[in-house]
């Protein structure tokens, strides 16, 4: 293992310490328990948007804390969900009284830890909502698996919901918007190489020189299918078509009923993309793929979208939701309406995403 680390067990903390020093105008970092929060939190009268997950996906989520996006982010150990005490303390710190939205990627650990945190926040009198992101079309089935994983749409949802909270949306409105973003977003990823978890020191999976893994998540977990490597155009086509031709997907999720103070099961179905739709297209590096290759992918993606009648109205190209040093790419298409687009365009100033201010 060759990495720019000191000791594996210090990696997450030292990285956060550096980030806090580099962006002291935007963020602060709390330790024991660990969370990143807006330097000006709590923002009076504003719904707080909080997310979190395992480390190793940087810049997500800590890099998205700041004006117009997240109020706090809870980083766990590498690829390990953070714990309820982190989320609860973060919620208490950034809650202005208008309540807290937890944006949760659909992984078993993240879901259970955020559910326990929501129960703690509720008991403390903090209005709280949990919205799951489950956009990974590589997972076909929700009945016999833990359901679709939360991937690229998370980044777009955090931007859009952060802007809506900044614009004065109340908790229910921000939660409804987040659910709608999730139901309109779809992603698919692939890996050319594995990644190495620092505490483990060896690749998470073995991939031959001439092989690739299609349908990966973001934790170096093996994907749906392993095959001989193909050209960038062929890979882009596989990913894009898996998204564009994906059929309606139905899942049952648990959401928090604030009035009753209990979990309720909600069945949600999304609608497939269709000609005429406007989309935000994200081409995302898994960490080790250079932006030059991402543009090769975007070139083909643009052509495919045109052919399918999808209009790319905005794009985001770069490393935003990564798996450490993994080489690979994920594509996300988010169907947008005017409301989502307005919040996408709204000013944002975070360590990793900045425009309009």
């Amino acid at each position, binding site marked *: 293992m060759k990495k720019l680390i000191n000791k594996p067990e210090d990696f997450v903390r030292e990285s956060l310490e550096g980030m806090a020093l580099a962006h002291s105008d935007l963020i602060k970092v709390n330790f024991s*328990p660990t969370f990143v929060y807006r330097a000006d939190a709590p923002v009076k009268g504003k719904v707080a948007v909080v997310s979190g997950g*395992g480390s190793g996906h940087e810049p997500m989520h800590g890099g998205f804390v700041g004006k117009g996006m997240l109020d706090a982010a809870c980083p*766990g*150990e*590498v*690829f*390990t*969900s*953070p*714990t*309820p*005490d982190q989320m609860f303390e973060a919620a208490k710190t950034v809650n202005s009284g208008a309540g807290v939205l937890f944006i949760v990627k659909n*992984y*078993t*650990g993240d879901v*259970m*830890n955020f*559910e*326990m945190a929501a129960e703690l926040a509720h008991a403390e009198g903090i209005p709280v909502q949990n919205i799951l992101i489950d956009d990974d079309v*590589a*997972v076909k089935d929700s009945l*016999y*698996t*833990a359901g679709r*994983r939360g991937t690229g749409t998370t980044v777009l949802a955090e931007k859009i919901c952060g802007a809506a909270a900044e614009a004065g949306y109340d908790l229910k409105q921000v939660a409804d918007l987040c659910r709608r973003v999730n139901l309109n977003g779809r992603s698919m990823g692939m890996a050319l190489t594995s990644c190495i*978890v620092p*505490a*483990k020191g060896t690749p*998470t*999976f073995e991939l031959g020189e001439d092989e690739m893994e299609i349908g990966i*998540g973001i*934790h*170096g*977990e*093996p994907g*749906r299918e392993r095959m001989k490597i193909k050209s960038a155009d062929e890979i882009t086509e596989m990913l894009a078509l898996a998204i564009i031709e994906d059929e309606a997907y139905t899942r049952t999720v648990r959401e928090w009923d604030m009035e009753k103070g209990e979990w309720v099961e909600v069945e949600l179905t999304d609608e497939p993309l269709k000609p005429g739709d406007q989309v935000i297209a994200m081409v995302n590096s898994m960490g080790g793929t250079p932006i030059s290759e991402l543009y090769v992918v975007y070139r083909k993606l643009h052509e495919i979208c045109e052919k399918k009648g999808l209009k790319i109205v905005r794009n985001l190209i770069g490393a935003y939701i990564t798996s450490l040093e993994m080489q690979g790419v994920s594509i996300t298409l988010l169907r947008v309406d005017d409301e989502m687009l307005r919040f996408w365009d709204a000013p944002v100033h975070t360590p990793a995403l900045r425009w309009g201010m």
Partner: protein
Amino acid sequence: MTVTTIPKDQIVRWLRRTAQVLEENRDYLTQLDAAIGDADHGINMDRGFKRVLSQLPTVEDKDIGSVLKTTGMALLASVGGAGGPLYGTFFMRAGMAVGGKQELTAQDLVTLLQGAVDGVIQRGKAQPGDKTMVDALLPALEALREAVEAGDDIRTALEKAVAAAEKGMKDTIPMLAKKGRASYLGERSIGHQDPGATSSYLILKALLDTINETA
């Protein structure tokens, strides 16, 4: 020798032994997890029980329920992943089931494990056969209850429970995972032993070994 009660100091020794066993099996559990999950189970459990070790001195003079609840809270705040809420709930619910006690009878042990396993099932919603820790825990609970009802002493009953957990753990090998990250592998999850079922077996076996050591 017949064992009719488990005093509190044995519960504390069980937790210390568990920490040692999980440290020894850190790489083994992580390798099992790398095959079908995300390669962190051994690392997380080792970190969690190190936190438990650091907090045990603050509750050693309290009752068994407090010791177990503190263990659960320590795991909840340090393990992360799915293991944190599940093992956190396991020990918190175990503690709630035997609150205030300084020693456990065979029946108390059944009550303890019943509370713990119920908690895990409620939190994780796994069914038997989903290739999770439930596949080791539920057979162990059933074997323990049957043995105690038949009049076995604690040691004999625990021997049967641990044997059932071991069998349950091995039975996860041919199973198709339906929960957690392993479920995304579909057919590719078949042929691998579930890391959560394995850590559950190791934790129960550590209790038996603790009792054998002093009996």
